[in-house]
C-alpha cells in the first residue's frame, strides 16, 4: 500500500518449466492411469 490510496500487491512469476509441462501432458493424456497407479502403490 502507499499514500496514493492504492493497494499494491506484488506478484511473483514462474518461468514455464519442463516439469509443469510434463504434468500437463500426464493430466490430459494419462491422467486416470497415473492416478490409478498412485492408488495401486498406496501413494
Amino acid at each position, binding site marked *: 500500500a502507499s499514500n496514493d490510496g492504492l493497494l499494491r*500487491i506484488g506478484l511473483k512469476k514462474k518461468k514455464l518449466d519442463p516439469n509443469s509441462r510434463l504434468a500437463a501432458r*500426464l493430466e*490430459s493424456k494419462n*491422467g486416470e492411469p497415473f492416478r490409478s497407479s498412485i492408488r495401486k502403490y498406496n501413494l
Partner: protein
Amino acid sequence: DSKDADIVILKNYLDAQYYGEIGIGTPPQKFTVIFDTGSSNLWVPSSKCYFSIACYFHAKYKSSDSSTYKENGKPASIQYGSGAISGFFSNDNVQVGNIVVKNQEFIEATREPSVSFVVAQFDGLLGLGFQEISVGNAVPVWYKMIEQGLVSEPVFSFWLNRNSDEEEGGEIVFGGVDPNHFKGKHTYVPVTRKGYWQFDMGDVLIGGKPTGYCAGSCAAIADSGTSLLAGPTTVITMINHAIGATGVVSRECRTVVQQYGQSILDLLLAEVQPKKICSQIRLCTFDGTRGVSAGIESVVDENKGKSNGVIRDAMCSACEMAVVWMQNQLMQNQTQNNILNYANELCDRMPNPMGESTVDCGTVSTLPNVSFTIGGRVFDLSPEEYILKVGEGPSAECISGFTALDIPPPRGPIWILGDVFMGPYHTVFDYGNLRVGFADAA
C-alpha cells in the same frame, strides 16, 4: 454450478504463472494464490486434506489456529480443465497486502486429486470475477473489499512483467491504476456479459491482414489465470500456418478440402451466404445462424452408427473452417489454385484442443505480428510477445502462445486473453463502470 460448467472447464491453472501472497485467519496463515479474473472463489488447501498428494506439497489452512474462524461447512467443488478441487466453505478474515477483509467466505479444499496441483507453485486461488459465476454463490473477496470500504475506487488493475530477465513478476493494484506501469490512455470496452470480464472484440489480424472470422465481433474474456491466448480453431490454424507452428494433420480437413474444396470455392464465388455453404454441400444442416453437424441426426437414427456421426461432425467443422479460410483468401484476391493449396496446407496446421504447438526458435524474429481489434484500437502482439521460450541454450523449446478452444454458440466463439495478452497490455478492470481497459504496459 453445472449451468456454467461449459465455461468453468476452460480454466487451466497449471499454466498460471503469476501469483501473490495473502493471509487467512488471525494470526494470518500465509498462502500463495493466483489472482484470477477468470473465476470468483477463494480456495486454499485445508489441514483436513489427507488423501491428496498435492495437499502435502502446499500450505494448509488450519481453522483451529485462527481466532477469527467461523464455521460454515457448506460443501463445494470446482471442476477445472487441469483437475478439480472439492471441500467445504469456511469464513475467516483475509489479509491482502496491508488490508484485512473481514468474515470472508472461502473454500477449504480437502481433495485436490489432479497431478497438476502437485507441481503447482501456488497453494490456492483468489477469484476476481463476478459473483454470478461464484460456486456456492459465495461473495468474492473483491466485493467484500468494496463493501467494507477498503478501497477508494471500485477498480483494480494488472501489470505483468514480461521481461524474463527480471525477478519482479508484476503488480495488481486494488483501488485504481499505477501510472508507472502503462503508457498513453486506456481503450475501454463495456462488459457484455457479467460473470467473466467478457467484452466484444473485433477482427484478428495476422501480419496486418484481417482473418475475417471476428469481423462481425467475437466475445473475449480478460483472464489473468490463464497463461496462453486461446481462440477458435479456425483462426488458430491460420496463425499456426503463418508462424510455422506444428499442427495435427486432420484427415477430415483434408477430405473436405480435396473433395469439396472446389465446390466451396464455386459457392463463395457465386456469393452464396458463407454460413449456408456447408449445408448446401450436405456436410452440415443449417439452423439459421450457423452450420449444425448433419451427424447429430445420426444420434436419433438407429440405422447409422455413432462413429459415423462423429466423423460427420468433424467433416462439418472442417467444412466451416475451410469456408472461412477460403473466404479470407478470396478477399486477398488469390487465385483459385492458391486458395485450394492454402486450405490444404492449413489442414496440416490444425492445433490440438487446449494443446500447445512448437515453433522453430531460430525463426522467431521473422514471424508476423498477430493483432486484436478491441474498442476500435488494434493491439499488436509481436512474435517475441506471443512465443514462449521454455528452457535455456540449445535445448530451449519455443512454444506458441496461442492455443485452440472452441466454445459453440450462443456462448461462443470466445477468445480467452490470458497472460500472453495481459503482459504487453496493462489491464484495468473497472467494476464501477462495468468495463475493461487496455493500454501499452510500461
